[in-house]
């Protein structure tokens, strides 16, 4: 089967947080939580990482943008104009390609929150947020939520650093195993719990043999699609589903105020980890670039977009800096190939680079269009919107406002990506807008709209 991931400039992508694995392009993140049980550290770490968004642009852009810092080819202005136009045209397509999965994930989360009561009931907390919020005074509650956030963020930082070290010392097998374990738990255990709760809500009876059959099929196909090969749409669907499941777990187990503070803190962390020179994720990228290896292709949602329109220009443009584009493209290709081989072959897949026939260059360029967004971004966007749906006193306006805010943030981030042409954190802008809109809509707009609606006034 064809893997149609597009991953053009891996080196310009920052690795995602724990969600991304070194090995396969499709390892899912897997946080393993249970009602207050201690999940494996690895699983936890994965869940909390942040990802970044990389964008695969056309080869000329890639070449221009220079990811690995190789020399930018000189172009004539006509070619640049053409390229700018292509960038904008395809930039628009990229934006839509990310809107759809983000919207789908949010829809799944909001639909579940509004209908299945399980996810809004308080049933204990994760061990990573040990302080309870059931305190009488506001100050105490605030203090507890800040402490919870500090603990959570430190866990994330520790895990990221651990991952960076593992990557530095080439412990690929460990990471691969960790990811497989995580995705197993996510695809089987969490799906079982989710299905159970949905069946309970709608009062549908299901016998165990049927349940086992369904869960087994779902999980097995998911593992194959995510870790190995599968049709692109199915892979995307599974990634969306596991992001939604993870977001639901967070919404259920994070206490209210802690959730908001954590959302804020994690976007700050994301910003720093990606942009600061000593940030763990940035170090990871640099290490990967030094080794000329694909960086953490896994746990990233990638939208494939194959088109051959306007191939002529990008082609001629790409042939110039072809060596550099080739390398980065080749890295991209490797990511796609790796799932089909075992992890130990990761280093070996790099060697065939020089021996690839020229004909595959076109094929490669056809694939090199698409945008990637880390799964953690999906998860935290959905957590924000889901929390808005869960706690906004039955009001849909707040949910809608947060949704629009997140989409706008995503648009802006994509715009910045087009301007700066390097990997950027996808969380800060969207989460900031989302939080601002959530709190302002909940406190200011809601009373206004409610009063208007009670008199049936329209504005």
């Amino acid at each position: 089967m064809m893997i149609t991931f597009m991953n053009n400039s891996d080196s310009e992508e920052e690795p995602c947080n724990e969600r991304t694995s070194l090995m396969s392009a499709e390892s899912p993140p897997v946080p393993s939580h249970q009602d207050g049980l201690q999940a494996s550290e690895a699983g936890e770490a994965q869940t909390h990482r942040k990802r970044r968004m990389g964008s695969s642009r056309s080869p000329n852009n890639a070449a221009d943008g220079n990811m690995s810092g190789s020399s930018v080819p000189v172009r004539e202005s006509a070619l640049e104009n053409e390229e700018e136009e292509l960038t904008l045209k395809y930039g628009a397509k990229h934006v839509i390609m990310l809107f759809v999965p983000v919207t789908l994930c949010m829809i799944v989360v909001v639909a579940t929150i509004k209908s299945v009561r399980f996810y809004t009931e308080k049933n204990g907390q994760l061990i990573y947020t040990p302080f309870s919020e059931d305190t009488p005074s506001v100050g105490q509650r605030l203090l507890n939520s800040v402490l919870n956030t500090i603990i959570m963020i430190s866990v994330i930082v520790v895990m990221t650093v651990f991952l960076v070290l593992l990557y530095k010392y080439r412990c690929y097998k460990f990471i691969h195993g960790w990811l497989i374990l995580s995705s197993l738990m996510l695809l089987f255990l969490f799906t079982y719990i989710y299905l159970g709760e949905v069946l309970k809500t709608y009062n549908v009876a299901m016998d165990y043999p049927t349940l086992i059959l369904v869960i087994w099929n779902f999980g097995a196909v998911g593992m194959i699609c995510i870790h190995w090969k599968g049709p692109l749409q199915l892979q995307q669907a599974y990634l969306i589903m596991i992001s939604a499941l993870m977001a639901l777990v967070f919404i259920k187990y994070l206490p209210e105020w802690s959730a908001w503070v954590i959302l804020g803190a994690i976007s700050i962390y994301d910003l720093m980890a990606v942009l600061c020179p000593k940030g763990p994720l940035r170090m990871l990228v640099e290490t990967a670039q030094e080794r000329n290896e694909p960086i953490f292709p896994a746990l990233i949602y990638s939208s494939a977009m194959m088109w051959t329109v306007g191939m002529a220009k990008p082609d001629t443009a790409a042939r110039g800096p072809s060596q550099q584009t080739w390398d980065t493209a080749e890295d991209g290709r490797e990511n796609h190939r790796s799932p089909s081989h075992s992890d130990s072959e990761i280093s070996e897949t790099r060697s065939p680079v020089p021996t690839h026939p020229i004909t595959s260059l076109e094929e490669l360029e056809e694939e090199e269009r698409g945008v990637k967004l880390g799964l953690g971004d999906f998860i935290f966007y959905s957590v924000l919107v889901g929390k808005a749906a869960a706690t906004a006193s039955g009001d849909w306006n707040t949910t809608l406002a947060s949704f629009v805010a997140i989409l706008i943030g995503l648009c802006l981030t994509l715009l910045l990506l087009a301007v700066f042409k390097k990997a950027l954190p996808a969380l800060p802008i969207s989460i900031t807008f989302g939080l601002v809109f959530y709190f302002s809509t909940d406190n200011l707009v809601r009373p206004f709209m409610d009063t208007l609606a009670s008199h049936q006034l329209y504005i």
Partner: protein
Amino acid sequence: KKPPPAPGCGFAAPGAASLSQLVLSFPHRAFFWLVSLLLASLIWFVSVHLSDQEDSKLQYGLLVFGAAVSVLLQEVFRFAYFKLLKKADEGLAMISEDGRSPISLKQMAYVSGLSFGIISGVFSVINILADSIGPGIVGIHGDSPYYFITSAFLTMALVFLHTFWGVIFFDACEKRRYWCLGLVVASHLVTSGLTFLNPWYEASLVPIYIITVCMGVWAFFTAGGSFRNVLKCLSCKGLAGGREGCVPRGVPVGSVASVWASLGLPWVFGWDGCSRWGSQRSRDGGDDGSGP
């Protein structure tokens, strides 16, 4: 030799293009509308808290004031969006090869109006829709039993109105016809004001629909349509001949979508729900068993 494109079809270019444009630019416009709403709510909130909360007449007055401020802010933001779009348009025109931008401003006007309409309509109606699912009796406290159905019609009218206002507004800004602008803002204020007459539906719904139809006709002519085009389009029977004077697919798509969204669902829940809820309430004793 290709005949020149009929001007009426600039109203809504090929349906597929405008759908993707709609999806793409919906968040931007929704964002602008939301910001305007936020500012208006802020003003209203501050004014309410600074005033005497017991005085209901004052509160009602403040509500009217808040609504008026909100309408004005919406138009201001519509203008701001127009400016933004003009800038983007110019930028695109500069970098494109033949000096023309790939997006047509008329198309943008239509999509912009529709997005404003959708977000405004959805914000107005979604809580009502959500409530219409739950058990209850409409108008049990003496309000009108036609609350849902009239809300549906009002929302539909609002969506259409925003679409038409968008087209007229952008065109007026392009051609600097400020009286058109003033008329659009005035009609928005009038529409909003008419909803204050609300339980007296004959006085509010009928004029609002008259305004909607007038705006629709005005927008049609602004976008370059004419009777000749209409006849040509009808005779083409929806041929997708690109720009050759055939049915602009975006208009039916947008209209049908908004009609269904704002009318279909509440009709189902609102109209025949009235009697159903009454009997259910008396039967169940008011307990919502397995309801979501």
